[in-house]
């Protein structure tokens, strides 16, 4: 069980980060300490060894020049000139008996030549330390050369102690730092997780707080907040629809049902039944139409249609819409005017824009007074393409314009005209899908609906 809990600790990302930080700091500290030790204490050793080696070279030349006697003389000279009082020499015969030098006997621990040894020696009754190397000479003679390093070794000891302590301190700091890092990590994450918890608990208004630094965590928070905004909007849409279904769809469903029930109970002839059934069928078709429209709006809002975007000329489909509704307008005594340039290209879905504009034109013609004029105009501006549909009917009061694009919204003036209240919702959805906007303005009198679409297709959230 202990091993499992140990692994569980490493599953925490905060601990992993903190451990990585601490590990890196400790390793860096150790590397630095090691380097310093090598550069200082190590240097002391290397200097001593270099001095001994140079000495050996000099003495071997003397031996080569003048044999044993010259060597003995050389050793004596060097000893006499050893101002630093640190040289150690011993020339021994093949049986390790002393020939000359300032060491009274061959140290038993120095068994092999060519290696450095550290030797404890007595100097005037006090213990000291020497670093020595033995050299084998021809004819079986042995030469021991060394230096007194007690001071150096004390220094080296000091350095080693200091660096080891420094390492301990670094480890301590790393440990503390690890906690600090883990704390930072947790604090940043906690703001996100707290927001998420609040939202999971049902409070959709919560957003991840920004620190204002504009760093990666803030960017993440912004992305999450955008996503939450979108979710809130979609959920609001669902809520609206649910409310609306309760309201606006139940009525025709109930009506159809009533008609059928009434017919089955009270119809007196086949003809009566027939006509009741026909009316009920028409009601049901109406309901199906509403559902189709709802599904369409949902499909648009979900954004999947964006995959089929292309560079399209809007004028042919919009001209078709104008043509289509011109006859209707004429039949009502309304003049529909179309002011369209020759070509207007956007990056989007022509069929969707056509349907959106058709909704706007349909509304305009429907609400125009007898003898009035409705216009469809398309303009290309710096910001994008503006499609403007104007009528001079009752319009939408300023305070209702915000709600007008909600599903099933029907203004007071429209209470008695046919329609499901989904037209503007669809136009809004199409606008957002294309990265554009829908503006509703007062045409004094009447309504001016302006659909603005970017020409290149922006990135947006729905």
């Amino acid at each position, binding site marked *: 069980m202990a091993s499992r809990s140990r692994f569980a600790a490493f599953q925490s990302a905060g601990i992993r980060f903190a451990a990585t930080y601490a590990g890196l700091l400790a390793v860096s500290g150790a590397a630095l300490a090691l380097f310093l030790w090598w550069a200082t204490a190590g240097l002391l050793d290397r200097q001593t060894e270099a001095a001994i080696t140079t000495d050996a070279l000099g003495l071997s030349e003397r031996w080569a020049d003048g044999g044993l006697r010259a060597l003995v003389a050389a050793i004596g000279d060097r000893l006499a000139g050893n101002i630093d009082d640190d040289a150690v020499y011993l020339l021994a015969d093949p049986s390790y008996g002393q020939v000359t030098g300032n060491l009274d006997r061959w140290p038993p621990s120095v068994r092999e030549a060519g290696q450095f040894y550290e030797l404890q020696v007595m100097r005037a009754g006090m213990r000291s330390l020497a670093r020595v190397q033995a050299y084998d000479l021809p004819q079986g003679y042995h030469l021991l050369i060394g230096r007194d390093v007690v001071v150096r070794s004390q220094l080296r000891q000091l350095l080693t102690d200091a660096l080891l302590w420094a390492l301990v301190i670094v480890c301590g700091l790393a440990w503390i730092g690890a906690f600090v890092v883990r704390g930072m990590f947790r604090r940043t994450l906690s703001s996100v997780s707290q927001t998420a918890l609040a939202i999971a608990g049902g409070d959709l208004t919560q957003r991840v707080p920004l620190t204002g630094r504009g760093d990666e965590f803030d960017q993440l928070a912004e992305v999450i907040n955008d996503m939450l905004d979108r979710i809130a909007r979609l959920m609001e849409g669902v809520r609206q629809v649910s409310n609306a279904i309760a309201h606006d769809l139940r009525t025709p469903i109930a009506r159809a049902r009533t008609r059928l029930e009434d017919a089955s109970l009270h119809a007196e002839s086949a003809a009566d039944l027939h006509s009741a059934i026909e009316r009920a069928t028409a009601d049901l078709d109406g309901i199906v139409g509403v559902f189709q429209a709802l599904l369409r709006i949902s499909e648009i809002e979900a954004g999947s*249609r964006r995959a*089929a975007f292309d560079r399209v000329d809007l004028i042919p*489909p919009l001209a*078709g819409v104008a043509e*289509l509704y011109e*006859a*209707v307008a004429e*039949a009502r005594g309304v003049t529909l005017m179309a002011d369209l340039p020759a070509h207007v290209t956007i990056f989007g879905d022509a069929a969707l824009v056509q349907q959106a504009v058709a909704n706007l034109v*349909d509304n305009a013609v429907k609400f125009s007074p007898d003898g009035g004029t409705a216009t469809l105009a398309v303009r290309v501006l710096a910001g994008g393409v503006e499609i403007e549909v104007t009528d001079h009917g009752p319009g939408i009061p300023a305070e209702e314009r915000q709600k007008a694009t909600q599903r099933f919204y029907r203004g007071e003036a429209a209470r008695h005209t046919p329609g499901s209240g989904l037209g503007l919702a669809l136009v809004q959805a199409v606008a957002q899908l294309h990265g554009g906007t829908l503006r509703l303005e007062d045409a004094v009198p009447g309504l001016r609906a302006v659909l603005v679409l970017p020409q290149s297709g922006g990135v947006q959230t729905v």
Partner: protein
Amino acid sequence: MRILVVEDDKDVAGFVVRGLKEAGHVAEHADNGRDGLFLAVSEPFDAIVLDRMLPGGIDGLKILETLRSQQNLTPVLILSALADVNERVKGLKAGGDDYLTKPFAFAELLARVEALSRRGKTEGPTTKLVVEDLEMDLLARQVKRSGQKIDLQPREFRLLEYLMRHAGQVVTRTMLLEGVWDYHFDPQTNVIDVHVSRLRQKVDKPFPVPLIQTIRNAGYTLRAERA
């Protein structure tokens, strides 16, 4: 016409088959994919009404793809509850000739099936369409009835052309919207009716015999009125 109906829903299938028979056609029915494919391959039909969702491991689109891969060009009307545009495109890409979503009015289905079967038979480039005493010159873009020239605006011309190409068949409002204005959505208001009524003013009113007939609950058709 010989029409094959591949539909697993008993009510819908019964309704369609009965309606087709009443309209004077011969209708065969299969209620699963395997039988449907077998019938479609082994017997000649003038049109096939094909539901997308079928039991038996072979769905509608697979049947369609198999037929087309065998160079079988029988016109196919796809029926589906899946209404969104992607599905429609998928169906047409697989080789379907028309796509109708459920729920549908039988008149719509009948009109479209009949239009489908006609499609294969005529054509070759035509320069003239003639129905009774109505003549349409496609090259000169001119219409004459009983020798008299009729002045039509471009949209009225296209509308009349569509009716003439489907003379004798029922043409629904949806078909007109799609065929003449390339409009694939339900406009709620009766835009088509208004256009047809204006066309009538020019083509029928001045003449003794009306050619544009309204078919109740279905649409319109272009033919001489029968007694």
